């Protein structure tokens, strides 16, 4: 039976997201209440996904409405971007990569290796998990707009 992600497993991803936005976007972001992705209909326009494997399995996803994505990437690369072009897609993947890499250092006991980033484009798409683990979402608010961090993580087996 699937169970949700444990708090001690999602915290490193929350910290990594806060740290990444603070240092690379110079933006203070605020995490909201953690929710179950299942049945929540969290739909956004662009998502960066990284797979986690090794001593634990999981995924980390950053999912943005278009407007937040454009503002975030503009801050990230230091150039104003106004359309969802290849730069934005590449940057959202790289952002997910940095967050996953930064979270890894608080999860060293699992010897996690990370996959390549995959970016999903599509108006109002949802990112759900499979049967093995119920992902949790952390809604973040920031001066750049709202976005979601979605994490699935399974340490046993």
């Amino acid at each position: 039976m699937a169970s949700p992600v444990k708090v001690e497993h999602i915290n490193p991803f929350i910290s990594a997201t806060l740290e990444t936005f603070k240092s690379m976007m110079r933006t203070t972001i605020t995490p909201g209440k953690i929710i179950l992705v299942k049945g929540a209909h969290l739909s956004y326009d662009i998502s960066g996904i990284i797979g986690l494997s090794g001593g634990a399995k999981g995924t980390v996803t950053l999912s943005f409405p278009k407007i937040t994505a454009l503002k975030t990437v503009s801050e990230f690369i230091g150039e104003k971007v106004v359309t969802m072009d290849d730069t934005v897609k590449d940057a959202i993947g790289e952002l997910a990569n940095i967050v996953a890499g930064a979270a890894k250092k608080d999860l060293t006991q699992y010897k996690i290796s990370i996959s390549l980033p995959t970016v999903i484009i599509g108006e109002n798409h949802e990112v759900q998990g499979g049967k093995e683990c119920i992902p949790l979402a952390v809604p973040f608010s920031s001066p750049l707009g709202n976005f979601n961090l979605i994490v699935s993580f399974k340490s046993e087996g």
Partner: protein
Amino acid sequence: MAVGIRVEHVNPFVTSTMETFAKMVGVEAKPGKLMLKKDAKLEYDISGIIGLSGNAKGMVAMSFPKHTAVAVCNKFMSADYNDLHRDILDAVGELVNIVAGYAKRDLTEFAINISLPSVIVGPNHQIIDAKDAVSFVVPFTCPLGPFHLAVSLKST
């Protein structure tokens, strides 16, 4: 450009898709011509994605039009849904998990580990792979409808 990624590395995923469909869905899935993903304009309703890491990194995705996903997963689970019910999404994740798990055994040279699946739902979404990976797409047909298998790999 990554070195060492060849068409042969996609074959285990093609074989495991055929095997998974034959054994677990109970239908024959026929692979079409393999192509480079950059040459294929692909949009889907639902995709199951799994991240790969090890001596090669990347991802494998199975993408379906809604009607194929519902029909395949109903047969897979012996269910009777007529929409993208939550259980259909779970089943898509499970399918890609089984396909990736099978394929991994034939890719021992890369010592691949797989992540948990993500399931993407949204009409006409696109999957964009990391730029430096080599990405292949294999279209499949089966009696329940068409779908695509996509494999993206980069040696590390």
